[in-house]
């Protein structure tokens, strides 16, 4: 029997106007990761500091002798700092293949032959990674804040620290956006997710090592900007108005973040094209 006897019907149903392709891509990206047990285990691990902090908050509000454990505004900055290693691994796991795998399978020409702009494609991929990073940083931080209110039995803590919610949100947004953009840009430079993972991990670790060496040689923190860890530390201290000594000024940290974002966008603009197929 000829195969076309299976029939082909014209589609007469509803069509959604162009513009929501980014949402389809983001949702598919999240679902693909959530189906992997190893990734779920990593996400659960990323919530382990939350459990410890929850116990700390519970103990401080329930046992008078342990009131000294009560959280302050800086507790949340420290918590977000503690989450950094988890964000590092989540970024590598969920982000390295986002564009690299598409490039390996020539999927860009499939995506861009649909009613989808390059910006929507990148936005979809960005959200697929940012969703997990926010789920491991902003979400547990806000959940901790909610637990503090619940265990204390009053919203006094939030009332006394009105800048805490915006600070957590702003810091997480900046950190997640810069990290996601940088990873997407790296991912667009290769067709191998392993290679991207190695380069990202190497860049972060190497930058920290370079800073330590330069600090040892010069005896100053003038080179702190070369390490993303220092940049985000400085940003957190500025945003949370923490009484700590930042490794570099807030202005320098903001400049580095803007440079990372701008460079990433420039790379993405150059690399996310359907033209690879043209011969």
């Amino acid at each position: 029997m000829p195969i076309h006897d299976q029939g082909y019907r014209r589609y007469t149903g509803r069509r959604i106007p162009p513009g929501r392709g980014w949402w389809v891509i983001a949702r598919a990206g999240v679902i693909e990761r959530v189906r992997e047990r190893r990734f779920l285990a990593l996400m659960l691990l990323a919530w382990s500091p939350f459990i410890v902090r929850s116990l700390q908050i519970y103990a401080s509000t329930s046992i008078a002798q342990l009131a000294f454990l009560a959280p302050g505004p800086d507790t949340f900055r420290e918590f977000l700092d503690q989450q950094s290693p988890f964000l590092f691994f989540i970024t590598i796991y969920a982000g390295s293949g986002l564009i690299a795998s598409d490039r390996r399978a020539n999927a860009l020409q499939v995506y861009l032959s649909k009613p989808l702009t390059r910006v929507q494609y990148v936005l979809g991929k960005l959200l697929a990674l940012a969703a997990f990073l926010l789920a491991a940083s902003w979400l547990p931080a806000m959940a901790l804040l909610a637990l503090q209110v619940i265990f204390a039995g009053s919203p006094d803590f939030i009332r006394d620290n009105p800048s805490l919610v915006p600070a957590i949100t702003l810091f997480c947004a900046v950190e997640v956006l810069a990290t996601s953009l940088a990873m997407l840009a790296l991912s667009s430079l290769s067709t191998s997710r392993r290679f991207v993972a190695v380069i990202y991990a190497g860049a972060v670790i190497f930058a920290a090592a370079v800073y330590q060496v330069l600090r040892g040689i010069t005896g100053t923190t003038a080179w702190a900007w070369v390490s993303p860890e220092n940049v985000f530390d400085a940003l957190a201290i500025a945003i949370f108005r923490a009484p700590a000594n930042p490794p570099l000024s807030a202005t320098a940290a903001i400049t580095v973040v803007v440079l990372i974002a701008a460079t990433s966008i420039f790379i993405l603009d150059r690399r996310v094209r359907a033209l690879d197929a043209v011969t």
Partner: protein
Amino acid sequence: MTGPAFATALGEAGSVVTITNVSVRYGPRLALEDVSAALPPGAVGLLGPNGAGKSTLIKALLGFIALERGELRMLGLDVRHAPLEIRRRVGYMPETDAHIPGMTAVAFVAYCGELAGLPRADAMQRAHEVLYYVGLGEARYRKVETYSTGMKQRIKLAQALVHDPDLLLLDEPTNGMDPKGRDEMVALIRDIAHERGLNLIVSSHLLPDIDETCDHVLVLSRGRVATQGPIAGLKGHGQRVFEVRVKGDTGRFAAALQQVGLDCHDTDEDVMRVLMPEGRGSRELFEVAAQQGVQVRHLRASVPTLEDVFVDAVGTQ
């Protein structure tokens, strides 16, 4: 008739694609040079040797490539001003392997349907239907990475069809397929064009593919339009074809024929096909043979084929 005159004569209202003085440049090289054509509804073949500009034209139609000059209109829409609306109404089957990694066939096709604007449930239903239509019904829960070359060609067709486009762009659709798979793909393309009423543009360097599936042809050569029109009309364009077998120096004989303005090309069966323009006769063949000292052992009038049209337009390059 070629060039802008043809485009104007057919008129935009009667064409699916109108190409007006289009030039595309890759660095110093002009990939398309002042191309004008009007592609009518139905199945249109885009024919030309490798590097003729077929894929470039398709990519320009999809808005992937900026035009250096000219205007492209598809389904009445300007490619520069309404690329998303055009892509919503067009299905594209790329030449190279292309899929979304890690997905099963049905998930991949449904995903493409959603990206093209179908609601999620409809996209999934259409994915199943289209996969059956292209002959992948039994393999639809397998990951695309595990597919053979022929199956990958079919899945590319399925993702291009899932949103029921008004126009399908097929870039080398039988690439890498075995003879049986190639026949089935050609049958599918013919069915889509002639039974289901979709408009098609089929790009191929394989003459039989175009001959068996298309009604019209646009022949490109070195980035320019070599000829265009209905295939039936071009085949019978006032010229006759003779099959000739000679004893002697065939190369010298062929060169002598070219010198007197007679195009000829070899076939697989050691027979030359000589294109004889209107008003000229077989006597000239014998005269040339006599001049070159070769003996005509076989001469038979034949029916012009698409290959003859192609050779006439492009030459034997």
